[in-house]
């Protein structure tokens, strides 16, 4: 059924093992106090911070190439966050030829840069590479922090670049980053009336793309485990739509639970030990929780309606879900034992609310809204009590938001009318900063991984 494949999911701590964090051999630069280069992303719309990211110089031809590519990856990550405006390297006046070069701050200020990323890539006799960086506050004329260095195999340069982008993001915003992450999604091809759908996985920026299944079976709605290299998803294997577990490293997959009819809409609990899902019996869908250790399931809702798309709160103490028990599909929240079911969305003009996903920060629930007066679909967020609704993205068909692990960015898919293109987009909570995620073909049902451990 599935292609055999192995993905390298190198733990971050192994990348770091050879790293000399802290002192980077440049003792001349005392670590200043935390500089004043700071973006407050809790404000509404943020003016992106001008930042200069020159190519990291290398010590060998190979490391020179890696240094150029690393700077490009870091630049793209920071730009796509909407919080940074990387400056065009063509205008750079100073060549940052090594980590020992002291920035000429007047030159960088003249370009309007507020921050500068200095780096280097050193080829080692062992064949390893050492990638180091140091962030500067251009106006304050001091380091933002000591920077870090990573010793790694050359082929890991891209992951190290994302990790460095996360470090810079964190240094300047005070929030954890989300660039060293992956996305699992459904790759679509073929005619709309008989679509071929495959599980696929890629880095958050679309790189390192791989197919996980061969398309022999219709597959939908993959979701990442928060703790393991595992995905839960829906497959129509043998013409029975059921929830499966898929191990990314081994390719092994198994059916989850023993439901008499269709099971669907799975999602992991934050501790990775449970999966909550819908199971249908005689046309009625209810929500069940499966314990992955005991393989026992318990029913959480018992209502003659479609109760579906359950999703845990980040603390694992509540579940939001969608139900049409009130006549149209709306959002509800309940305790994890099924008690205290409470409606939180009240769509005007028959607007439906669907696919709730709880922010990793716990403060918001993202959703799809549709079938209101104008017929459009929307991606929006509301507080877990239903207040403070904000719509972030709109289209003929936009659907299925998934959170970046820092709770600041959403990814979703958008479909054009008449069976047109289907693609993934990211948008931040301001609703201003929308990007298409480049995929080899049509793409839907994205799910963002946690930060790779």
């Amino acid at each position, binding site marked *: 059924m599935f292609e055999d494949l192995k993905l390298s999911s190198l733990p971050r701590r192994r990348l770091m093992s050879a790293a000399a964090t802290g002192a980077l051999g440049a003792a001349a630069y005392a670590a200043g106090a935390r500089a004043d280069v700071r973006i407050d992303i809790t404000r509404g719309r943020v003016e992106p911070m001008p930042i200069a990211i020159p190519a990291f110089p290398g010590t060998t031809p190979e490391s020179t190439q890696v240094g150029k590519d690393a700077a490009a990856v870091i630049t793209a990550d920071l730009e796509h966050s909407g919080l940074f405006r990387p400056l065009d390297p063509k205008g750079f006046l100073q060549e940052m030829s090594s980590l020992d070069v002291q920035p000429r701050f007047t030159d960088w200020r003249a370009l309007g840069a507020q921050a500068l990323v200095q780096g280097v890539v050193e080829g080692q006799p062992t064949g390893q590479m050492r990638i180091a960086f140091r962030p500067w506050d251009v106006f304050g004329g001091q380091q933002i922090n000591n920077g870090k260095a990573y010793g790694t195999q050359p082929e890991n340069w891209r992951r190290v670049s994302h990790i460095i982008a996360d470090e810079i993001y964190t240094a300047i915003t005070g929030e954890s980053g989300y660039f060293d992450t992956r996305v699992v999604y459904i790759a679509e091809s073929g005619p*709309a*009336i*008989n*679509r071929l*759908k495959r599980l696929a996985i890629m880095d958050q920026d679309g790189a390192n793309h791989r197919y996980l299944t061969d398309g022999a079976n*219709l597959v*939908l*709605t993959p979701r990442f485990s928060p703790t393991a290299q595992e995905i839960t998803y*829906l497959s129509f294997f043998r*013409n*029975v*739509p059921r929830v499966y577990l898929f191990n990314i490293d081994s390719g092994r997959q198994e059916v989850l639970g023993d439901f008499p*009819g*269709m099971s*669907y*809409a799975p999602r992991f609990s934050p501790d990775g030990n449970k999966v909550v899902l*819908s199971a*249908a019996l*005689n*046309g*009625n*869908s209810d929500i069940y929780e499966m314990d992955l250790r005991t393989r026992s399931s318990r029913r959480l809702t018992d209502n003659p309606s*479609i109760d*579906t*798309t359950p999703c845990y709160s980040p603390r694992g103490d509540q579940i939001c879900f*969608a139900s*049409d028990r009130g006549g*149209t*599909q709306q959002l509800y929240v309940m305790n994890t034992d099924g008690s205290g079911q409470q409606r939180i969305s009240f769509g005007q003009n028959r607007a*439906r609310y*669907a*696919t709730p996903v709880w922010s990793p920060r716990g403060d918001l629930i993202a959703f*799809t809204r*549709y*079938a209101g007066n104008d*017929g459009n679909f929307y991606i929006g967020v509301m507080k877990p009590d239903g207040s403070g609704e904000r719509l972030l993205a709109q289209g*003929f*068909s936009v*659907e*299925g938001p998934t959170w970046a692990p820092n709770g600041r960015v959403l990814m979703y898919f958008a*479909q054009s*009318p*008449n*069976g047109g293109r289907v693609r993934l987009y990211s948008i931040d909570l301001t609703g201003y900063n929308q990007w298409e995620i480049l995929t080899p073909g049509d793409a*839907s*049902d994205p799910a963002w991984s946690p930060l790779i451990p």
Partner: protein
Amino acid sequence: MKLRILTAVAVAGLMLAGCSTPKKQEAAAVAQAQTQTPPPAAPRGPAPDSIEYFNTVVGNMVHFDFDKYDVTAADQGVLRGQAQWLNQYPARTVTIEGHCDERGTREYNLGLGDRRANAVKAYLVSLGVNASRIKTISYGKERPTCVVSAEDCWGKNRRGVSTVQ
């Protein structure tokens, strides 16, 4: 409609032929030959116990309103025909597919398609078809028959399809 137009053309052709003397006798001969042969038997259609008969004569499809799953009055006759046929051929089994239009979300549409398939099943069971002969499957919005984003097309996609085996 196309057939009727062709017939009209053929008739016009015959009339034109009638105006041209050399063809006149030929046309008359054809007309005579037709009156002499015995009337042809009714066109041979699919055998009444065949899947083709079920699909084309009985009717294998019903449709639903937006976000609804009740069998419409118009479609009850189709399902009565299906039940009658299934009762007549008890060796046949049926799988009912529930489908939705694109104006709903993926998972909800799976639930809605399941509801639609089960609504058809319940109707057939109420007319005496044994439930053990009926399977259901929901395809949600995954298998449209029509991909124009307009109500006419969405209405075609909101369907229950009975596939007999």
